[in-house]
Structure formats: structure tokens, C-alpha cells
């Protein structure tokens, strides 16, 4: 069986949870006998401008044959104007407006669509739902299509052109049951073949350094945030909440913001911004954290939470983010907050209760071990893809 993955970006340097998850899945599938795995993507690395940064053409990355196509034009300013307008009432946007939003959102890679049209793959896998490569790709693909939506409860999910992609896809793959509930609440797709898969976790590769040493804070305890440092991920809110917390509760607790910086963080003696770090450094930082805080409200899975749990570290999540809260509730591995007051009480409790931290961390680790190992996920997914291809063959007969 030949499988083609279609993502707007396909490169370890591209920061994006859904695209990284698709790439990891493709790489693990490529190890399976009888499967030929390739990927179609663009030459872009940055979703804010879609500039062609990687060379066009075909290469091999970790067993996957990757073909990159040039983006016809970078993102235009008109996108942000239209996006700002539609965000207030996405359900009221006309079909034409939603189509225009999609075109402006991009990335527009005509070569990719042409390759799909003439492709010989048995199944095409698209992720995430938000981009033109997915929506136009599903329309163009002659083979059966699987949409890994990575859906968040955000305005674009309600647009007509997006609904069209969900309805046209032959099958759906969700990260969590919460994501499935969200999608089914908005789009009439419950009867489609689907699987709730999640993302597998690799073995931690530690660098052997103490987290405090990396951060330059010695033995001081710290909260870790590992993601893109921007407002959408909740980094602004976390920074503000933490500063308020420290004003009201002076002490040694520090906040480590780890990841590429997209928003300005004012210097503060108790806040360390590391920028992007390598994998061993990330695992070291996670291992020694007092807690891992994931304040984003718009997540569909969060691999970072699984990584923290793999290191036995408790997590703190946004109460309004159904998938991450569901992870915590099911695993017993984390707490959540829905206001500053709750944030303060949660951090106080975790900082002062080592037994609780250990218990939550152990619960989280057991959850990851039970549900998110590639060795269990890949055979399930291969069976699922096989059934999607078989179903299409049956329909043709």
C-alpha cells in the first residue's frame, strides 16, 4: 500500500504540532513492511509568511520520500483584514467569503495539487484542517482521503469551506475523543470511518545536565512551558499570571519559557526565556521541572504534555481546553485552572506538596505508557488505512 502525507510544511525545523505529529507518524509507518510512504509539502517553513525557504524537489527524510513544491505567493496582508472580520461571526460568513479566507490563508502550491491529481497512492492523508493544501488537496485527490483535522474550537472551524473538507474526506483521524466530539458538534460527519489515535512518544534522549543549570538558576524550583512562545499558546497569559503570582507569593519559584519566541516577554528576575533548545536540553528541562504548565486553550492533543508525563512531571492545563483537560481527568496526572485565582491555588498546592507532584507524575506516566506508544498505535493505524483503501475499492466495484 502506498500512502502519501500532505502537510503545508514537512521538516523538523517547522514548528507546528499537527505537522510534526503527521511527520512522526509517516516516519513510523515507513518502517512497516509492505508500506511505501511519501510526503507532499511546500518549500515553506514559516506559516506566517509562507516564504519558500527549502529547495523544491524530492529527497528522503527518515525513510519517507518527501517532495516539496513552491508556494505561488507569500501570505498577503489582505488575509489578516478578512480574518479579523470573519473571526467575530464565522458561522455567518458566506461560502465565497470562506473560500476567499482559505485562499488567502494558503499555502497555495499548484504543483502539489497537480501531483496529487496524477498520483498513484492508495490513500492520501491530510493534516491539519486549517490550510489550503488540505482543503484543496481533498478536493483534488482521486484516491481515498483521510483527514487528521487537529481541530481546535476556533473560528475557522465553523467556515463553510472547512465544512466542505470534513464532508468530502473519506475518513477521519482524531487525536482525542474530545476532538471528535468537537468536530461532530459542528459538522455532520459522524458516520464516516474514523479512528481516535493520538500521537506516539519516542524514548526520551536526555543530555545529562540539571534543568536548573541549563536555566542558570541553580537549585531553584521552576515551572516549565515548552511550546511556541506566543499569545495563542497562552504564553502571554502565563507570563502575566506568573508575575502576579510572584508579587503575591515571593519565593524561589521560577518560570522557564522554552521554545521559539513570537511575542515580547519583558525581562523579569524570575522568568527565564530560553528560545529554541535541542531535544536533549528539552528532556533535561522537563525532567527537573516542579510542574509543566500548558496554558493554551486551543490544543487538539499536546505532545508536550505527554513528554512531561513521560518524565514523571505533573502538568497544569487550561480548564477550557477540552482535550488537555480530558487527558488530565483520565490519567489523574494533572490539574487545571479556569481563572487567575485557580492558577494561584493550583501552583501553591503543587509547589508545596511533593507527594502530590509525585503521584500526579506517576499517574501521567502510566497513562502515556498505556495509550501513546508507537508500537501500539502504528498497527492500529495501518489497519485503519487498509480498511479505508479497501472500502474505496469496494465502492468502485
Amino acid at each position, binding site marked *: 500500500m502506498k500512502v502519501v502525507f500532505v502537510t503545508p510544511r514537512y521538516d523538523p525545523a517547522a514548528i507546528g504540532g499537527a505537522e510534526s505529529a503527521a511527520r512522526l507518524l509517516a516516519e513510523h509507518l515507513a518502517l512497516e513492511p509492505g508500506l511505501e510512504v511519501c510526503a507532499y509539502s511546500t518549500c515553506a517553513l514559516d506559516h506566517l509568511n509562507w516564504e519558500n525557504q527549502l529547495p523544491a524537489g524530492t529527497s528522503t527524510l527518515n525513510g519517507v520520500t518527501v517532495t516539496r513544491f513552491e508556494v505561488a505567493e507569500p501570505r498577503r496582508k489582505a488575509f489578516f483584514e478578512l480574518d479579523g472580520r470573519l473571526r467575530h461571526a*464565522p458561522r455567518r460568513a458566506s461560502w465565497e467569503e470562506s473560500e476567499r479566507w482559505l485562499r488567502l490563508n494558503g499555502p497555495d502550491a499548484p504543483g502539489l495539487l497537480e501531483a496529487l491529481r496524477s498520483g498513484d497512492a492508495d490513500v492520501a492523508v491530510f493534516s491539519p484542517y486549517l490550510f489550503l493544501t488540505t482543503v484543496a488537496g481533498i478536493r483534488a485527490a482521486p484516491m481515498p482521503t483521510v483527514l487528521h483535522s487537529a481541530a481546535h*474550537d*476556533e*473560528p475557522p472551524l*465553523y467556515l463553510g469551506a472547512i465544512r466542505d473538507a470534513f*464532508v468530502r474526506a473519506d475518513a477521519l483521524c482524531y487525536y482525542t*475523543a474530545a476532538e*471528535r*466530539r468537537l468536530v*461532530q*458538534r459542528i*459538522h*455532520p*460527519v*459522524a*458516520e464516516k*470511518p*474514523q*479512528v481516535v489515535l493520538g500521537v506516539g512518544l519516542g524514548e526520551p534522549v536526555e543530555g545529562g545536565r540539571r534543568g536548573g543549570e541549563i536555566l542558570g538558576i541553580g537549585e531553584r524550583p521552576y515551572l516549565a512551558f515548552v511550546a511556541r512562545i506566543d499569545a*495563542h499558546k*497562552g504564553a*502571554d*497569559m502565563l507570563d*502575566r*499570571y506568573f508575575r*502576579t503570582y510572584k508579587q503575591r507569593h515571593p519565593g524561589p519559584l521560577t518560570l522557564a519559557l522554552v521554545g521559539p519566541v513570537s511575542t515580547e516577554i519583558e525581562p523579569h528576575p524570575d522568568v527565564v526565556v530560553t528560545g529554541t533548545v535541542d531535544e536533549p536540553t528539552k528532556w533535561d528541562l522537563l525532567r527537573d521541572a516542579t510542574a509543566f504548565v500548558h496554558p493554551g*486553550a*486551543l490544543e487538539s492533543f499536546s505532545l508536550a504534555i505527554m513528554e512531561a508525563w513521560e518524565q514523571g512531571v505533573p502538568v497544569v492545563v487550561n480548564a*477550557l*481546553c477540552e482535550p488537555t483537560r480530558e487527558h*488530565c*481527568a*483520565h*490519567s*489523574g*496526572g494533572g*490539574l487545571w485552572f*479556569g*481563572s*487567575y*485565582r*485557580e492558577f*494561584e*491555588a493550583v501552583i*501553591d*498546592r503543587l509547589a508545596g506538596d511533593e*507527594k*502530590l507532584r*509525585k*503521584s*500526579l507524575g*506517576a*499517574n501521567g*506516566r*502510566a497513562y502515556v505508557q498505556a495509550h501513546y506508544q508507537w508500537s501500539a498505535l502504528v498497527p*492500529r493505524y495501518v489497519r*485503519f488505512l487498509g*480498511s479505508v483503501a479497501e*472500502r474505496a475499492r*469496494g465502492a468502485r466495484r
Partner: protein
Amino acid sequence: MIPEPETSERGDDPSSAQRYLATVMAEIDDEVERRRASGDLPQRLEHELDELFLRFSPMASRFGGLEEALGSLEASAYIDPVVPVASSKSGGTFVKRSLRRASMWYVGWVTAQINQFTAAATRTLRVLDDRVRTLQRQLEAQQVPAAPVLEIAWAHGPGAWWVDPALRGLSSPGGRVLHAAAADGWLVHRLATKGVDAYGVEPRDGRIDLAEVEGLDLRQEPVFEHLRAVGTDSLAGLVLTGVVDVMTAGERSVLIELATRAVAPGGRLVVHSLSEAGWRSEDAPIEADAAAGRPLRSRTWAALLERDGFKVAVLEGPEGLDYLVVATAAEGGPEAVGVR
């Protein structure tokens, strides 16, 4: 403080871990309420911080929940007349401060009135919210519980008399076949073996994991929630077993409406139900007594479905303990037979 189970027990037993977490979260909620009552956080700061929390919240939270909507309103209800004066330009702070001082009497007078109005408006909404909650609580006490899924060994398993007749005529061209309540997927498996593109929905906990791993498309979801989310005319067949037996009239009416929408023209709706005699039998589960509804007679089902444009056949079970209703949706939908 709650007693803490051993770590190893928690890690191995998800339900124990979940109970432990629920207790910790309840303690945290109590602590939050205690601190709120103490008034230790300036109201303006709290509103500002809560507004920040809601800025990137999910759509449904922004527009769906009354509590969140009220919280958002309260967070933005206070208008601050004290304009910030920080400036990066030399002398800017002085100029801004002077302007603020000079206009404070005017701005302060206007904002005081606006703040009085917003405070009254939010208070009114809170009073309304309280009254709605009181009504909700009163309704909850009188609420009719949702019909449970019934399961009796002789009626809901591969050996039941109705399975072969139910499977006859079910095929997947024109859509998939859905079985609810699917239990461990035994009927979905039978359908799949026949080459039918089938899937199952099971609302009860702990019934489907094993089958899912074996490659069947089974989901743990409430049946109504699922049917609301399927496409119009998307199912070639809908098999309902253990679901309709003790439904209330209201639930049954909604179910028929959803089924009529979901089943494609020419598709099959298959309903298995206990009869009144089966419901009263010694081996009927206790849910039969506790449920608010009771089984209909087979001819009542026939009449209800015929009214909605289905062509109906009824098969009575041995000893009259149960029956099977096989209904075929009219080609062209209910409109085609003049019922809509």
C-alpha cells in the same frame, strides 16, 4: 487533606487515579472560594486577569456558556478613568499626567455613571442567572432519567432469533450500516463478515476497547449525540437494539426524527424491542423497573414509522417476549409518499 493511595496502585488503576484527582481538584476549589471570600485580590486586577484568560478561549466557551459569558462581561464592565501615563518619549509621561489631571473631573464624572450602569446591568444578569439556576435545580429533581441500554443474554447476542432476519436485506451501497447499542461489536463483526460496511456506537463504559483494537469501527458515544452528527441520508441501515425498549415518548419521538433524517431513501431501519411480556419477565434487568418509559406494542412502532414514510414489516419473537420491526425508507424520502 485526603489520604493518599500508594503510587503504584494509582498508576495501575486509572479509576483510583481519577478519584484521587477529583478530590484534589475539589480541595483546590474550596481553597479558591476561601480566598475569594477574603477579598485578598483587588477586583480590578482580578477582572483584568480573567479577561486575559478568556482572550484565546474556545469558540463555544466564548459564546456558549452563560457563566463564561457573564464572566467575560464582568471582566470588561469596569471602565477605568485613570489613564496610563507611561511614555517612551522624553517628557511624555509629564504631559500625559498633566492632561490626565486636567481632564480627570470630566472623565471621572462620565465613567462613574457608565460604571454605575454596567454594575447594575451585570448585577441584574447575575440575579437572572441565579433564578435560572434555581429553576434548573428544581427541574433536575423532577427530571426523567434517560432511557438506559437494556441487555438480556437471550435477546442481545449472536444467538438471538432476530439476528438473521435483521441482517437480511442490510447492505452498504448508499451508505454505512450503524448498530446501536453495539456492546462489544458482535453484530458489527457479523455484518463485516458479510461484506457490509458497518460500524457501531455504544454509550456504556468499558464495552468496546477490545473490539476496537481488533479493527472494528466502534465508538463510545451517546446514541442521540451520534445520530445528531451524522449526515442527512448518510446511512444505508440503522439497527437499534436495547435502545428503544424503555424510552419515554419524548425520547422515542426524537429518535424517530433523527433516524428518518439519517437513513437514506431505500435504506433500512431495524428496531428490536422487548414486548410488554418480555419487560415483565423474571430475567429482565433492573433497569426495566427503574426506567421511565415502557415498551411499545409492535403495531404501535409500525404505525409510528409508517406515518413517517417507512414501509414496515413486523416479526414477533417466540413466546411473544420481543419483536423485530424492519422498516424501509421510502425512495425519495417521506415527501415521496406524501407524509411530509
